[in-house]
């Protein structure tokens, strides 16, 4: 896919159809285009609501919404890894938390809080850890089983949690409190509408990058990987390398989210690295719908939003309800809530060939 562009076209039924995705290569309208595309509508709606939200919310709710945005970014990283590459990473929090701790240490020990230093640092930390872990778990003479990767990432997250809990330099069980706010020049970026729009902006950019990635030739190879790993290997693609690349990108995104989270909340603690947090993001994506990118965002928004509302009134019962809801989704709607509106075809996406000159080579 090239650049996301708006194209207004008239469908066979005469209704204008605004699409934010690529257009077909030869200009004709294939049969499935007669149906309205739902995905861009969903994306557009979500974006619109997100932009308008701080204008109607009270301050402390905007702060809550910012947190949800950052968690959506985190969820996005998992959707990329699981929904598009089939890697069950039960330990995404490892990258999220390590980046969080990394920037907390930068702020505490080296007093570096400049946004253009800490956010790239956060992404970099996530990238490095995921390259290391992914390389170990995924590469090797024999392809690793899915269960092994799941268990390996789970153990990684658990071990990191235990390590942070026991290492006094990292604050032990208490974590690192009172992180100074992020700075842009001499101005502090504190929680509230400013931080909200910053996080939202980053989410939109990363989202578009992911869309770009999964609709490209690379994405096509990933789709093949998802369908039949052995066959794609016979085609000459190095399946394990593809997976490792996606895992690394996912780790970088998770790291970026972790950095944002650390500065927003003002403290980091071992739970950010641990198993509960890792599985949280798995649940967001499952709930919303894996393999759609927007599903991850919607899942995060819904679960966090409902948690927030219910946890006040039904504190004891809410986690049980959450468990039951998730079980129901897993049993009866494994493709997630988004499958109520999104067709299967649209979910996989189209990877149409572009007119000459606009495409880049496949990896």
């Amino acid at each position, binding site marked *: 896919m090239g650049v996301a562009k708006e194209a207004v076209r008239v469908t066979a039924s005469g209704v204008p159809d605004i699409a934010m995705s690529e257009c077909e290569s030869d200009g004709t309208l294939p049969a499935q285009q007669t149906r309205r595309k739902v995905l861009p509508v969903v994306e557009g709606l979500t974006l619109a609501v997100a932009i308008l939200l701080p204008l109607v919310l*009270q*301050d*402390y709710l905007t*702060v*809550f919404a910012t*947190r949800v945005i950052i968690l959506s970014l985190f969820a996005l990283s998992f959707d990329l890894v699981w929904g598009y590459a089939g890697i069950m990473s039960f330990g995404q929090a490892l990258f999220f938390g390590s980046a969080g701790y990394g920037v907390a240490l930068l702020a505490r020990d080296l007093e570096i809080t400049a946004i253009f230093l800490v956010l790239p640092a956060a992404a970099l930390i996530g990238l490095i850890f995921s390259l290391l872990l992914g390389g170990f778990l995924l590469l090797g003479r024999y392809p690793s089983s899915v269960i092994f990767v799941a268990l390996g990432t789970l153990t990684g997250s658990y071990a990191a949690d*235990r390590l942070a*809990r*026991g290492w*006094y330099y990292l*604050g*032990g*069980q*208490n*974590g690192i*409190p*009172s992180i100074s706010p992020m700075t842009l020049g001499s101005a502090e970026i*504190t*929680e509230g509408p400013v931080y909200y729009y910053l996080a939202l902006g980053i989410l939109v950019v990363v989202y578009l990058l992911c869309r770009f990635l999964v609709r490209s030739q690379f994405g096509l190879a990933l789709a093949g990987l998802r369908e039949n790993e052995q066959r794609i290997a016979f085609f000459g693609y190095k399946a394990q390398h593809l997976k490792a690349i996606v895992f690394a990108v996912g780790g970088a995104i998770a790291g970026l989210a972790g950095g944002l989270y650390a500065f927003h*909340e*003002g*403290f980091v*603690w071992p*739970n950010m690295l641990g198993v509960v947090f890792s599985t949280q993001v798995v649940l967001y994506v499952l709930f919303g719908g894996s393999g759609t990118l927007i599903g991850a965002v919607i899942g995060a928004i819904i679960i966090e939003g409902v948690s*927030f*509302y219910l*946890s*006040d*009134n039904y*504190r*004891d019962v809410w986690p049980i309800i959450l468990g039951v809801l998730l079980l129901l989704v897993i049993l009866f709607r494994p493709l997630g809530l988004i499958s109520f509106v999104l067709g299967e075809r649209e979910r996989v996406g189209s990877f149409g060939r572009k007119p000459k000159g606009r495409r880049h080579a496949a990896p």
Partner: protein
Amino acid sequence: MFSDHNHLSRRRFLSGLAVTSGALATGVGSWVVRPDWANAAEGPIKVGIATDLTGPIAYAGTADANVAKMVIKEINDAGGLLSRPIELYIEDTASNESVAVGNVRKLIQRDKVDMVLGGITSSMRNAIKDPIVARGKTLYIYPQLYEGKECTPYLFCTGPTPAQQCDEFIPWLIKNGGKKFALPSANYVWPHTLNVYARKVIEANGGEVVFEEYYPLDQVDFSATVNRVISNKVDVVFNTVIPPGVGPFFKQLYEAGFLKNGGRLACVYYDENTLNINQANEIEGLASCLDYFKTLTKDDPVSAKIQAAYDKDYPGKILFAAGSAATGTYRGLKLWEAAVKEAGKVDRDAVAAALDHAKIAEGPGGPAEMVPGKRHCKMKMYTAVAKGGNYEIVGRSDGLVDPKEC
């Protein structure tokens, strides 16, 4: 969005207990206790309580919330503070720092409280002090015994410090236990910092620290430690392991015959609540040093009055005890009341200036005084020993003990 309206909630921790008059809850959010009369011209004074109503130390947090409700009701019944009623807003920190920060923000930004009291563990205090004091520009009172070294402006501590818990306790332990100490500890900031101070006092009094170790918080198998205690013939186990590990640890020590061979257990956070973690014979002779024990009600009328009032309003399993910050909560609220009366208004700087040297003549365990400039509190300290599942006082401080902080 959150308009005020009368709305009875089904909060479980109030079920079965006497519901205070006018207890309401707003639609989404905290408990609000609103007095029946709200006719003061300036509007009510708002107090926020942020404590662990759920989680492993829910027994402590719930006690603190109960004490707050009791004290605020007393003040309101007597005419309020500065002739204005006090409204109480209670938020759950849920033993989860992430949730806590969000809920504390509600107190500051939505409810706009004039003061926040709460936090039990040091990690909770560290997580919420920033939103309250720095970003929220609100006064914060921390009521629990802790490791000291908290010198943030506008943050006042009304629980015992290491100096108060060790200076007289450790000499007593050496006399009534022996010279060889072991320091098995949970691995987080409170034990680390407390042990530094304890070691100083132990060695200054002729004792010896045989070993000092730190364990992950959920470790439940202590065979290596127990073996080290027995083989080194340790006299006093100065324990800072916390639940869930402390129960199995004491049990394993008992089974290895530590108490039978004359060993002494010591644990400075042990109060009436934690007595139930082990069977009575497993902790026989355990010594603790706190600002209050229930057995004081036998000879101190003020303590008896406070204990009776609490037991009447909140009978049941949630106890009024010193290790759960309940006494610190009482002390903190009364000191704050005195400070507000002196300052004549509720804005932060005025109250902080008055609170700096506030005193109360009546508190659980005795009177209390803030040390000017230090934001910590002098109080009477008591050494008690567990006998047959109850405490027996074996030592009292001569007067108010200095916290020696900041």
